């Protein structure tokens, strides 16, 4: 069993194999556990051929990087082991075919379906769409290159934060963006007049998306992004024992992180500042509410949209 040799490089690799129907789930699990990325059972849009009779395509993907070649070898070996161990005449051979995946096969999908939209005064458009979108004088245009990024502004939790910024942000406010992801909230805050925005995210990919977003929108001089979590961001933000506070603290993250770090959020809110805590599913409102109150935060508004809730308030003194 020799896989077609993929070109080495910086692209994702697709591994596709035709699998007898009854074995698809097992092969998908083997592939998922070998590459760590996941697997897909069934056809995808790029398939130019159908799987042979009685089989289905199962595919996994290998991330670009130094480990790619050894990951491909592991996939081949694990499939050989499975065939040998199966002792099932239906599973006589598994022949994985590997090929480079072009960005056009996934990153660019977004562009095909992407439509400009607005959250009140904030109009979110791609650079190509900008000339075609009718804008009002007081619109704040946020140029976004949709692609690998999270936080494109469309999600209910991001929308409520964007509305809160438009309602409450004062010129020259200093903004802290906890779990900044794509940087969309920081960049929007800067464009709405914030003096400075500091975003941190535990995911290292986030900064590679957020910094170009700030540059594309001409606010990179007022936005700073770092890779850090609640536990180590203090070393960057604080000078000795003094806790740096902010006029606006945004946290659009998972509910259990909100619950665990409510006090870390609270201590960053300045005396006359405010916070927006978003990303809480409707089902966990009680838990997050309790954590925020226990941390000494008041809740002025609870905004529930669809399945998601956003808390707005201040720090109790």
């Amino acid at each position, binding site marked *: 069993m020799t896989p077609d040799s993929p070109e080495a490089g910086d692209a994702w690799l697709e591994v596709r194999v035709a699998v007898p129907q*009854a074995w698809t789930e097992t092969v*998908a*699990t083997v592939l998922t556990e070998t590459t760590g*990325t*996941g697997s*897909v*059972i069934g056809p995808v849009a790029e398939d130019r051929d159908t799987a042979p009779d009685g089989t289905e395509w199962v595919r996994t993907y290998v991330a670009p990087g130094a480990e790619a070649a050894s990951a491909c070898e592991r996939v081949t070996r694990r499939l050989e082991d499975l065939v040998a161990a199966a*002792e099932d005449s239906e599973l006589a051979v598994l022949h994985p075919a590997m090929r480079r995946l072009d960005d056009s096969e996934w990153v660019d999908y977004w562009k095909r*379906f992407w439509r400009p939209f607005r959250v009140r005064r904030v109009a979110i458009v791609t650079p190509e769409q900008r000339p075609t979108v009718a804008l009002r004088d007081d619109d704040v245009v946020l140029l976004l290159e949709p692609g690998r990024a999270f936080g494109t502004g469309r999600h209910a939790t991001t929308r409520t934060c964007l509305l809160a910024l438009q309602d409450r942000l004062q010129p020259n406010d200093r903004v802290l963006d906890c779990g900044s992801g794509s940087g969309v909230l920081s960049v929007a805050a800067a464009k709405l007049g914030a003096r400075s925005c500091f975003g941190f995210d535990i995911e290292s990919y986030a900064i590679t998306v957020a910094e170009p977003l700030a540059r594309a929108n001409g606010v990179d001089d007022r936005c700073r992004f770092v890779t850090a979590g609640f536990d180590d961001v203090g070393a960057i933000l604080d000078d000795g024992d003094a806790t740096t506070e902010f006029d606006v603290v945004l946290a659009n993250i998972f509910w259990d992180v909100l619950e665990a770090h409510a006090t870390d959020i609270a201590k960053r809110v300045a005396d006359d500042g405010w916070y927006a805590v978003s990303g809480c599913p409707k089902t966990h409102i009680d838990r997050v509410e309790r954590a925020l109150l226990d941390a000494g935060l008041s809740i002025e508004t609870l905004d529930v949209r669809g399945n998601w809730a956003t808390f707005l308030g201040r720090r109790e003194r």
Partner: protein
Amino acid sequence: MAKEVKAKIKLQVPGGQATPAPPVGPALGQHGVNIGDFVRRFNDETKQAQGLTIPVIITVYSDRSFDYICKSPPAAVLLKKAAGVAKGSPEPNLEKVGKVTKDQVREIAETKMADLNARDVDQAMRIIEGTARSSGIIVEG
């Protein structure tokens, strides 16, 4: 009126670790689904099963909205649980990491019959046994 189903997508993704990268990105992106929304919901729902392989079926409707359901864990995961081992053997032919009984294999086969598309319990059991051997798990009895 029920919405028209445009596609059903079958994925396996590590719990709590879906990203917009492949396989989720290409699989959902081809149908114009809001990838970020799926990633967020899935990771939130599967946080407790961090890193554990989770089969998920996503139904995409003609208006590009979607629903999804997480299925029972794959046979390989159930086998490891039954054998009380954290992971399969790196050298399944040489190094055995655990044991399961024939009854445990039958139980898993019955649980997974529908997901495996097996013709009958015997075929499902053969698949489960093969999966066990390929993970370095011995089937006793």
